[in-house]
């Protein structure tokens, strides 16, 4: 955990101010990890810049000295994307947290990279507007991190993911230059769509410092429903039936029995513990359409054998149900010391098969698993409940993950739907995208960042 040499520290302090350069172990150890279990790295120095200009200066200094930079926001990532590498500068962007403007005429919001995701939606809400992407950590995560990871959320089926809402970016490049991509125009085909290269680049190509986001009119009505089932297949089939009926709800989330128990232990909102699957459904839009769609969804759920169907009485109860779902991952940590979360995604019609396969794999390797996720978009989160200190059990977890990845790819799926590759999934990337595609990604990285200074070792070696 050696700090950079004193001359570098002095220069960093001159750029961002003495109080914004952290070097003591008590200050830096808490920046050694993100939200990913069992991953941590050594931290020599943490720098907290206050402006794009300062970031540019820091990057220029790092480039001149050949020092790596690992950028982070609130550190809620789930693939180890912001875990520090040896000898790096940790660049923490939480001070740049301003929402700069809400433009109701052009339906855009401009914000600094460290603005909290939920705060952006709250600012839009004041103008009757809506920022739909809602990753599980939206109350904590920063928008810069969301863009860098191309985060998803609970509303993917109807509203898409972060990428679908990014109109423009300000980025500090690996040599310290500041570049701007995109604008407030809906149509813009001038040159390569460079912003799209940065979205989901996990901090390896540039440091996103400011974002211009698309927002949409806020739906006038919303209805939230909860259905419980004795068989997971019935929940999955309900989802297929709803989509076949030409309804696109904004949310179709499922929890399995293990997850239901953990969430209920935490939230205590009366979820039924004795069912095999819970389906959380939400529809939003024009009040008349919402009422009709909700009625149809309830009918379809009952027809597929839902044991019990509950409609949220009011906004408060709807929020309570959605928040409970958001807590699923962390709530699963109640059971065992270490929680290994996966993010595999398959085409929607293969989801029931995949959920059943996960349960089989857990049984085969004698592991505890809780599975939850986004039934509407095929994104599931099998979560192994284990103990990192038990190397024999951890070896079985890795075998199980291997089986799950193999099956996912056989079904035409992806190793990560919304968490990113980071450190956690880089072993499987080549298998998914193929040799040529993998090589092209690496060539782009090499051409762009020849010294390999930005987030080295993430996505690929």
């Amino acid at each position, binding site marked *: 955990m050696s700090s950079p040499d004193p001359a570098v520290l002095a220069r960093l302090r001159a750029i961002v101010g003495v109080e914004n350069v952290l070097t003591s172990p008590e200050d830096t*150890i808490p920046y050694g990890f993100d939200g990913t279990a069992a991953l941590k790295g050594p931290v020599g120095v943490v720098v907290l810049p206050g402006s794009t200009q300062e970031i540019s200066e820091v990057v220029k200094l790092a480039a001149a000295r050949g020092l790596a930079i690992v950028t982070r926001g609130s550190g809620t990532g789930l693939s180890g994307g912001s875990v520090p590498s040896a000898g790096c500068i940790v660049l923490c962007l939480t001070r740049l947290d301003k929402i700069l403007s809400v433009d109701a005429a052009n339906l855009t919001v401009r914000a600094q990279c460290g603005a909290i995701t939920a705060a952006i939606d709250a600012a839009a809400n004041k103008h009757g507007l809506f920022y739909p992407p809602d990753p599980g950590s939206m109350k904590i995560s920063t928008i810069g991190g969301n863009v860098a990871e191309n985060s998803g959320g609970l509303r993917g089926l109807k509203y898409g993911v972060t990428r679908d809402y990014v109109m423009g970016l300000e980025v500090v490049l690996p040599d310290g230059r500041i570049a701007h991509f995109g604008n407030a125009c809906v149509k813009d085909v001038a040159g390569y769509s460079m912003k799209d290269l940065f979205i989901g680049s996990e901090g390896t190509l540039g440091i996103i410092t400011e974002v211009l986001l698309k927002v949409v009119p806020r739906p006038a009505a919303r209805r939230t429903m909860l259905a419980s089932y004795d068989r997971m297949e019935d929940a999955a089939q309900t989802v297929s039936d709803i989509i076949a009926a030409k309804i696109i709800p904004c949310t179709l989330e499922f929890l399995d029995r293990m997850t239901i128990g953990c969430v209920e232990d935490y939230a205590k909102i009366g979820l039924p513990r004795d069912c095999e699957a819970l389906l959380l459904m939400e529809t939003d839009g024009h009040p008349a359409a919402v009422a009709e769609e909700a009625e149809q969804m309830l009918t379809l759920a009952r027809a597929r054998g839902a044991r019990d169907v509950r409609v949220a009485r009011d906004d408060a109860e709807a929020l309570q149900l959605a928040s409970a779902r958001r807590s699923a*991952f962390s709530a699963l*940590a*109640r059971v065992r*010391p270490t929680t290994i979360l996966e993010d595999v995604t398959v085409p929607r019609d293969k989801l029931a098969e995949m959920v059943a396969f996960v349960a089989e794999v857990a049984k085969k390797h004698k592991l505890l698993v809780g599975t939850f996720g986004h039934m509407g978009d095929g994104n599931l989160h099998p979560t192994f409940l284990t103990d990192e200190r038990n190397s024999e059990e951890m070896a079985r977890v890795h075998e199980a993950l291997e089986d799950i990845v193999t099956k996912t790819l056989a079904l035409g799926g992806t190793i990560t739907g919304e968490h990113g590759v980071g450190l956690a999934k880089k072993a499987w990337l080549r298998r998914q995208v193929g040799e040529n595609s993998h090589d092209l990604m690496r060539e782009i990285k090499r051409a762009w960042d020849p010294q390999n200074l930005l987030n080295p070792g993430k996505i690929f070696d």
Partner: protein
Amino acid sequence: MKPSLKLLDYSILQQCMHCGMCLPACPTYVATNKERHSPRGRISLMRAVADGELKLSPAFADEMSYCLGCLACQTACPAGVDYSNLLETARAEVQSAGLNQTFTSRFWRTVTIRGLFMRPRLLRFVGRLLWLYQRLGLQTAFRKIGLTKLLPKDLRRLEPQCPTIATKFSPQLIRPVESPAKKNHRVALLTGCVQDLVFADINRDTADVLLANGCEVHTPPVQPCCGSLHAHNGEANAAKTLAKRMIDLFPPSQFDAIITNSGGCGNHLRHYSALLADDAVYAPLAKLWDSKLRDIHEWMMEHGCRAPQAGLGDLTVTYHDSCHLTHGQKVTKQPRDLLKLIPGLKLVELPEANWCCGSAGIYNITQPEQSEQLLVRKVGHVIGTGASVLATANPGCHLQIARGLRQAGSPISLLQPVTLLARAYRAER
């Protein structure tokens, strides 16, 4: 055996999977935006100490002391991390390593935690002396002629914060046993330390509310301190001694419930079984004790509290959650429901009602700056509600926010929910 992070069950540390859900709930993280001042940051430091990667250092000690111990992170944490246990262990280890101790801090520690709060009669005697000092006008006189400037720096800062000592303490207001007309339950009433010296009338109100609801109230005149101050400040052995004295005085098998009306004490009181788990004799008694321990609001609502027939006129009231009542004991709805029983009383919700007011045990003494910032934030919200009364149920919050309201020149009065209910019962006659 000395308390130590290394000896602690490691899975309690591992329970934190550093997802960050605690960050927006933590007042010190929100104030500073630095990870070390967040719950998961502090846990990572504790884990580094347990792993031998970090030595116990003055900076580590400072960080443990900078934490409010408000436990808002425990409410926010889906993984159920036992932060309170971790913090107490870390503080105890800091304490036994002799870190963060200046001569004066050691002196005051010895006087208060090891002296006064171990000896209830001595505490009352000192309380009486303070009362005399305040009553005889000496306080005003000393302040006027600048005599308080002769006090050592620490005391000089605290002198104006010293609460007004009550004219009568609990034993002068409550008989050892008081019986209702029709007895349904037999309960013990804990009178507390600060509550007894400053708010003995609230203990009387608590007894009245219990009597009005068919409870026979047992209130021994001399009661030990519950030990929460000791446990929260790294004095685990003293906390155990006090817990045993408490159990001896109130054998749990003899009561339907043991009632506390102080949020901070209550959260400690209901965890005696964890504190005494290694004690062969007291462990089973402590388990029974924990099952009988009730916050007054919790007990009243559990047994269908009688709605008063008379009200207190049109009264707009807002409610501040004491941290250890809401985050520690999870008693959040009951005080509000109890207030709503009073005819004519309108309850308006306080923004950030469960955000710490900065009192936090002795935090306002150890970390005055951060404490003051939180107080200003709290008082701003209270005034914004337009209520004429702020209700809260913990003596620490009561004193702190009352001082803040005074400083802000606000006429809002501060009362506890049981006081309002007791007054409504009295208005029936």
